[in-house]
């Protein structure tokens, strides 16, 4: 195995594009090293991205959003007050990933590129309207986070391409987001169902909303019809019920050891309601 430590994303993309065998990028390593250990993946070229300037940084963008480096671990997101104030739903999703030790290494970019339908940080990124900056042999492009996962373990990244930053939009006024997941214990587990809601209020009424579900389809998915169910409402009981029904209807889960399809559909609706309530409260300025 060749171990590379490029100083720029362009160099990293060049190394990946020229590589003949199995290539993996290394940021936090909490998936890659486990796969190597299990013998599932034996890279010929391992490209460590942490020597690239900016990969450990959380920075304000010019428009008031955030640019998050691809090697920023969960614990650094949780420790960043201004980011947590803007996007609590994004941060709380990432903070549900693994133990304290895993939080010391695991990254948003890795959680996204690992391609798990149950990735806890991805629904929040999607509802926030986050985009990834992708660097590849042909240059740099951006892609909405919801367009990255293509199936379990598969992404829209082409050979030689890699995520070079995660970009969150400006929070703006009267906005709130939330991520909830169901697991049969209090932590250290994989989502049976996950749901993120991001919304913006205008005059006490929901003016914009995005709802995403995890672990109920081959990819984390945006559910526009669930968002439509609450836009124009003040999240009254009827709106909550319509939201829950839309989330349940959109869920296309499988039955496995974590839960049956029927259970997952039901829980998708319940979580959507609860996440929407919290996002609504946060949008009103509650800090819960």
């Amino acid at each position: 195995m060749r171990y590379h430590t490029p100083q720029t994303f362009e160099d990293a993309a060049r190394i990946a594009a020229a590589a003949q065998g199995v290539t993996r990028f290394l940021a936090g390593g909490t998936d890659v090293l486990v796969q190597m250990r299990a013998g599932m993946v034996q890279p010929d070229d391992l490209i460590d991205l942490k020597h690239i300037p900016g990969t450990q940084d959380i920075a304000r963008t010019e428009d008031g959003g955030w640019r998050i480096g691809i090697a920023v671990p969960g614990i650094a997101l949780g420790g960043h007050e201004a980011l947590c104030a803007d996007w609590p739903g994004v941060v709380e999703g990432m903070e549900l990933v693994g133990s304290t030790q895993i939080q010391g290494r695991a990254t948003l970019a890795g959680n996204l590129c690992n391609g798990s339908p149950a990735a806890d940080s991805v629904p929040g990124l999607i509802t926030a309207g986050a985009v990834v900056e992708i660097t590849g042999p042909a240059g740099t492009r951006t892609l909405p986070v919801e367009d990255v996962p293509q199936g379990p373990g598969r992404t829209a990244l082409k050979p030689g391409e890699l995520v070079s930053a995660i970009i969150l939009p400006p929070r703006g006024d009267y906005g709130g987001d939330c991520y909830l997941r169901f697991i049969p214990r209090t932590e250290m587990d994989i989502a049976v169902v996950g749901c993120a809601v991001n919304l913006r209020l205008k005059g006490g009424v929901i003016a914009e909303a995005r709802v995403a579900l995890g672990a109920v389809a081959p990819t984390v998915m945006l559910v526009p019809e669930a968002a439509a169910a609450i836009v124009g409402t003040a999240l009254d009981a009827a709106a909550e019920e319509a939201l829950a029904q839309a989330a349940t209807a959109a869920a296309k889960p499988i039955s496995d050891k974590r839960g049956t399809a029927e259970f997952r559909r039901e829980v998708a609706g319940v979580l959507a309601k609860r996440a929407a309530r919290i996002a609504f409260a946060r949008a009103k300025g509650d800090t819960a």
Partner: protein
Amino acid sequence: MSKIHVTTKVNGDPVEFLADPRETLLDCLRDRLGLTGSKEGCGTGDCGACSVILDGRLVCSCLVLGVEAQGKAVETIEGMAQGEDLHPLQRKFIEHAALQCGFCTPGILVAAKALLETNPDPTETEVRYWLAGNLCRCTGYDKIIRAVMDAAAELRGEAA
């Protein structure tokens, strides 16, 4: 397979070793540097027995490559006692009988030390969540939690 020369700092001491790039930091600590206090329980980041502090962050050394330690500072269980003087956490673990087979203990001590450095006055719930990535199959955890809480009180200068 050519090895890579790694220069790093372990428990304050500059060290160097030659690592195969596939070797974990845990294997480098144990096999290259003879620091066998960090244990391998699972090798996949689930059990926490290999916990070390890397540049101030608690990590599983089985999920870090040895070559990634280049230029960094690693703190292991071997750096916890000052000569013959045990760290208060170590003393409290003995007092509370917070270990039986002892395999998980180095990782738990390192993890607990990392907690108390950032949060000197944790609640029991905070201790339990912080240590959720450290598995112990002997004690049932209660004695561990009591030992950590007691050590935290002592470190804060409160009489237990």
